[in-house]
């Protein structure tokens, strides 16, 4: 069977879904394909969800330009998509004169794009703002406007809103080949064949591979480093109050260090491991990675026994482009094939990436006529944790399932889990990223069977067919080898 569409978006990360949402404003047929069982499971999942003020990026780069644009519509996006957002402020620590020089350059860069209240602060002020920060830091660039999104929420918001406005979302659909024809592309997938007049390649780590399928590629997506992240228990989430980072080359992010409280008050330690990855699917957390991450966190915040508070750990290859800047441009051979490769700060700019792509598509000949019935609004899943007692009473009165807690570590109710499933979660991880069920101290060890049971019930499938993250990752291995 073959499907026909105007625009095919390959990749359901924050870039792909943002493009889908932008296109859903117009009378355009669009399909989004994603190879995983849910959206946002590639580079998006691995992001810090920081909203950067932009001082790190050099003038003239596309990244810096888009950061500026995205800040202008930030409030509108937060309002329309019901996104949670918090202004934490960021401190970039400098440990020597060379670092301090970089801070001064960053301050200038930031001021040029009108980042407000940038300040280089000395030891006493660092001590006042972050008593636990390394006291051997000689100065810091303080960026009070740096913010933080609720991780995963942006991508789900774009996804749900685009879907509500008519974009066809095909999950578990992997592109296997692209045949360019005269006025269209024939796209082969593991499921249906799709004919599309325009293609937007937002395949993240795999963008180069996808571009090659259409023949010829004039950009590179590399994964020079593996990044790693440790999430620590909420009981030490207040060790720092700001995003505390070290110096980094924005083009490479090869030795980035970060300690910050997460949106939900855990502590996050992040580092990029300065050695090559073992391959594009290298997601193993090795023992050495634990040590390196803890060590780099201690450079920023010493004297804390981080290790005993670890609740989970992640690692994987980080996609970077050759020059470190965003790539949003037409394929060298096909003007109707747009390549999108987004290294950091992709999350920050996600709201305007879609617009940028739409403009390029329009130049390539796609006619964009605004839909009369476009609904820009999307509501988030109501959460017990974020509701007032009054709201909780009302929620439970309407649906008693909001009175039954399933994930006790994060206080997630059955009502929220069912709502997540109604919005498209089909796996344990899908429920987890939407509701936080299983993100707490015990890491699904208490609620795993229960959430699997609810998924099975709501989806009308047997218990043993429910997976952790799609494709053969069945929660229990009833059949199989």
């Amino acid at each position: 069977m073959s499907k026909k569409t105007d625009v095919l978006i390959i990749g359901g990360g924050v870039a792909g879904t943002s493009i889908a949402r932008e296109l859903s404003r117009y009378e355009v047929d669009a399909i989004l394909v994603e190879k995983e069982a849910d959206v946002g499971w590639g580079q998006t999942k691995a992001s810090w969800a920081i909203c950067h003020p932009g001082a790190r990026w050099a003038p003239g780069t596309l990244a810096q330009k888009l950061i500026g644009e995205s800040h202008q519509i930030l409030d509108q996006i937060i309002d329309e998509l019901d996104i949670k957002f918090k202004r934490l402020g960021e401190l970039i620590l400098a440990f020597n004169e060379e670092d301090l020089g970089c801070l001064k350059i960053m301050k200038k860069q930031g001021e040029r794009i009108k980042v407000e209240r940038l300040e280089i602060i000395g030891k006493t002020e660092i001590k006042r703002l972050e008593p636990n920060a390394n006291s051997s830091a000689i100065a810091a660039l303080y960026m009070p406007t740096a913010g933080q999104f609720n991780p995963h929420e942006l991508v789900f918001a774009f996804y749900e809103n685009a879907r509500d406005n008519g974009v066809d979302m095909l999950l578990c659909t992997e592109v296997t080949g692209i045949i360019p024809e005269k006025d269209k592309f024939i796209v082969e997938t593991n499921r249906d064949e799709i004919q599309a007049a325009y293609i937007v390649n937002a395949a993240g780590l795999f963008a180069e591979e996808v571009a090659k399928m259409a023949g010829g590629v004039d950009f590179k997506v590399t994964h020079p480093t593996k990044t790693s992240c440790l999430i620590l228990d909420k009981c030490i989430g207040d060790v720092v109050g700001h995003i505390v980072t070290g110096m980094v080359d924005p083009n490479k992010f090869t030795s980035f260090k970060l300690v910050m409280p997460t949106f939900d008050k855990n502590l996050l330690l992040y580092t990029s491991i300065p050695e090559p990855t073992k391959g594009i699917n290298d997601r193993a957390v090795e023992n050495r990675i634990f040590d390196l991450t803890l060590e780099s966190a201690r450079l920023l915040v010493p004297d804390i026994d981080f290790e005993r508070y670890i609740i989970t750990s992640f690692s994987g290859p980080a996609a970077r482009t050759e020059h470190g800047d965003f790539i949003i441009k037409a394929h060298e051979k096909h003007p109707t094939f747009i390549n999108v490769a987004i290294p950091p700060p992709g999350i920050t700019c996600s709201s305007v990436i879609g617009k940028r792509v739409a403009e390029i598509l329009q130049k390539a000949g796609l006619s964009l006529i605004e839909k009369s019935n476009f609904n820009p609004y999307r509501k988030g899943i109501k959460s017990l944790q974020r509701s007032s007692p009054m709201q909780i009473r009302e929620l439970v009165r309407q649906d008693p399932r909001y009175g039954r807690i399933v994930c006790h570590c994060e206080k997630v109710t059955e009502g929220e889990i069912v709502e997540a499933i109604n919005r498209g979660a089909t796996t344990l991880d899908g429920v987890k990223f939407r509701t936080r069920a299983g993100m707490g101290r015990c890491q699904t060890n208490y609620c795993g069977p229960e959430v699997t049971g609810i998924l099975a019930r709501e989806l009308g499938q047997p218990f043993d067919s429910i997976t952790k993250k799609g494709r053969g990752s069945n929660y229990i291995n009833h059949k199989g080898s």
Partner: protein
Amino acid sequence: MANESSVPVDVAIVGGGPAGISAGLELSKLSTLNVALFERDEELGGIPRSCHIFFGMRDRKRMYTGPAYARELEGVIRKTSVQIHTGTTVLNIVPGGPGEAHRLDVLSPKGLKSYESRFILLATGCFESSRQARRIPGTRPAGIFTTGTLQQLVNLRHLRPGKRALIFGSEHVALSSILTLRRAGVSIIGMVEEYPELQTYTYPADAMRRFFGFPIYKETSLRTILGNERVEGVELVSRKGEKVFRLDCDMVIITGKFRPESSLIDNTPIEFDSSTSGPTVSMDLMVSVPNIYAAGNVLRGADMHDLCALEGKIAARNIIRNWKCNGAGVGQPIFIRAERPIRYIVPQRISPSKIRKRLFYKLFPWPAIQVERTLKNPAIEAWSGNKKIWGGSFRRLIANNRYPLPVEKFDWRRVDSEQGVTLRIKPAKP
């Protein structure tokens, strides 16, 4: 949280496992007390519900299976005047000021309610640390469970979660996971222990090894877990000779390293002991806030259910005593802490005037220590500042067991109450 109208009770018990129920039974003997018990699960009984062996020996004086023990406890508590609220989660505790009642905000499908209670007993139990918290390297596939999850799947849901399992860790609970796996028809490909000694009794572990026919790899660590979707195998590395070898399996069971379920005290002034991850208590099991008590595994994961039950009973008696004499004054307690490899000492606050003779230590070892790993012939010393106030030795300390500390032999007169007491293990003689 604002309250519409809060329900007054005398004692609120949080947790309907062995400790909570036993406390409820004891409290119900005083008919004037209005007692409420909250259990977040749909059924009473706690962890024994999903376990299956040797229950009830020391508290109910006969042997039960786990579910039968849970049913027995449920049966007796339902006959008392204690109000039971199952499927009900205590969201938070707001301690009241001096002389005031404490508030509990409680959620159930019936709605959000507040209770005002003069006494609270925390009996929330414990859970096993996750794989990540134990720094077990590798990918993140499906098929990595703790014993608790395994037992939920096998004993409550009657499912077979996999075919071939590797057991990581050798604490007492590992034996329980062996039986659960065999019961579900899963073959065991091995048990891995990082230390040279098993962390449980050698005899039953060895008997199971022979009976079910699986190897025990001592002094071996889990180098990595393999597989992207589902567990495909593990790589082990033995300390001796650094030999790396691969075993195929579709499940890894992470056992032990319990941690108290103490999230209720997270945002309260109740003092937290980072060595147990639970609240600190005095000798009468009161936490640092007056009239709030704690008993069972919330103090130190994990102990046998029957010891928890007895501890719940003792806490209940202390509550009754406190109730009758309206808050008896406690002398200035002395803080006692332990250094690694001693995992903890509970209670953490000792009142020297209250130390009695070794009456029922054998039955109920307390004040007691536990060690992080099994130690042979350790010598333990207690110091206050630079003064040694006690020294003694043990023949063998098994990781999971509690051992009584002869605090009555401590030279309490020399203790500096500012400095408190620190327990250390004296380095072994060469």
